[in-house]
């Protein structure tokens, strides 16, 4: 209890907690859950965009997309490493993902149907992710906060690239503009879901905020995202698919419609439109890669043994 009080005082003073510091079990558990979920999201998030690498429309876009998806793999690596400092191995986390015990962002259970979706993902999905992540650069757990600094820099670059793709399409042929609008129609609501359930249904928020694992509520972030994104859509002549959307002069913010929470909870349960595809792809990569990982391990052992014998 004295340790707990000291811990809470440090957190309240915005000090970083480091791997070797004492921390409450619930804090550790919450962090592992959140960080591994975040890492899994980066990895599963490679799939919808990876789906367009072979079909990117020109050489420049192909290179940019390859680099972007590569960045996501890199983010996954940082985050798994950061989470491993809390005593859970990457393999354990991966198995939790594949067994369905661990979650990843619901957004990646929606399909990428046209090239415009690559724009929409960068613009909206990375945009929403940044909104969630910027505060995490000051989160209380040191390794997580430091990973987030690096990640946020790259994410905002991705967000600009995504917006640029969308802008280009919106200014393109009628078919391209239609594609861009359709992508916005399909990705808008799932993007709003990325901030999680409404505050009154988010029981862990208070604790997480006290621990500085979260620094804003879901609804606060969602509002911020809407307020920033709607003018961006208008600027390039696209329409946000929400009849209730309206600037509220008094609040200095947009009023907007209700997210379909039933859909959100279904997707959380694993019933998203392409959830089975996502898990099948990860499972297959894991299974097909088993002999490679084994070989690397066995080879390293052989070489180590040979070296020792030679000494």
């Amino acid at each position, binding site marked *: 209890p004295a340790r707990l009080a000291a811990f809470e005082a440090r957190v309240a003073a915005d000090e970083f907690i480091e791997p070797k510091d004492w921390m409450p079990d619930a804090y550790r558990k919450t962090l592992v859950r959140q960080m591994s979920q975040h890492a899994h999201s980066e*990895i599963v998030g*490679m*799939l919808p965009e*990876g789906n367009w*690498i*072979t*079909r*990117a*429309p*020109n*050489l*420049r*876009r*192909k*290179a940019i997309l*390859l*680099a972007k*998806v*590569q960045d996501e*793999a*890199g983010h*996954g*690596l940082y985050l*798994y490493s950061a989470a491993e400092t809390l005593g859970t191995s990457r393999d354990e986390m991966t198995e939790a993902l594949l067994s369905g015990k661990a979650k990843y962002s619901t957004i990646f259970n929606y399909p990428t149907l046209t*090239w415009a979706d690559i724009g929409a993902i960068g613009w909206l999905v990375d945009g929403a992710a940044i909104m969630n992540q910027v505060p995490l650069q000051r989160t209380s757990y040191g390794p997580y906060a430091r990973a987030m600094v690096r990640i946020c820099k790259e994410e905002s670059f991705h967000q600009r690239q995504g917006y640029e793709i969308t802008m*280009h*399409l919106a200014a*393109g*042929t009628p*078919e*391209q503009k239609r594609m861009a609008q359709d992508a916005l129609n399909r990705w808008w609501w799932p993007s709003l879901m990325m901030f999680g359930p409404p505050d009154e249904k988010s029981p862990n928020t208070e604790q997480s905020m006290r621990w500085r694992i979260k620094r804003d509520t879901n609804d606060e972030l969602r509002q911020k995202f809407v307020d920033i994104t709607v003018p961006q859509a208008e600027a390039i002549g696209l329409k946000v698919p929400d009849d209730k959307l309206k600037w509220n002069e008094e609040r200095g913010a947009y009023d907007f419609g209700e997210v379909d929470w039933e859909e959100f909870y279904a997707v959380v349960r694993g019933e998203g439109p392409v959830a089975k595809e996502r898990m099948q*792809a990860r499972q*297959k*990569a894991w299974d*097909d*890669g*088993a*002999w*490679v*990982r*084994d*070989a*690397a391990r*066995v*080879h390293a052992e*052989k070489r180590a043994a040979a070296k020792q014998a030679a000494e």
Partner: protein
Amino acid sequence: MSPLATYALRLGDDSLILGQRLGEWCGHAPALEVDLSLANVALDQVGQATHFLGLAGALEGEGRDGDALAFRRDVMDFTNCLLVEQPNGDFAQTIARLFLFSHYQELLFMALMASKDAQLSAIAAKAVKETAYHVTLASDWVVRLGDGTEESRARMIAGLDWMWRFADELFAMDDVDATALEAGVGVDKAALRAAWDARIDAVLADATLERPASRRPVLGGRVGRHSEHLGHLLTEMQFLQRAYPGATW
């Protein structure tokens, strides 16, 4: 196309098609680190393709840029070697392809740096640095898989066996190559063979693997006679440019 434009085109096609193949791995590799490495090589190859194809288009002088060449030719007009268009197969087959090709590409680019064509020489000078990494990556994996488990060894042998018949084509010289060589622009590819053999043999020895038996080489890629794999690759790669003619992206 003039022989020199065709020369640049072939270099570009090799890089483009290998880059496309490696891009297929994205998100599906055996480990996150491998995903990163393969994407890295893919990115380098797409970059090289951009330079070489851009140059080919400029030399041709008919207004085709790199994208027009990449996305608007059909299989008969692709000039890549057969090796790079081979399917990824399992990870061992992918590594076997990269192993044979990256050693060739490094030797080629080293020689191409002496090209009298300033642009070819500049592209080669940049690319050769990237290729050094590809060589190390592929060779290391050949050793790990060859001298790993029984399964990895069997797969590495099968992967090499699939790719080996396409190795001779890398060093084959035809009229285009001869013209480029005489002009001081191109490379004597046949002369690279001995160094390539020595490199390949050294890695295979370290991997405790034997060199696959020689067999009748399969040729034709340079003049558009490909395997059945390339056509399918193109359907994916070229879809958007063909479905939306006139659009920019």
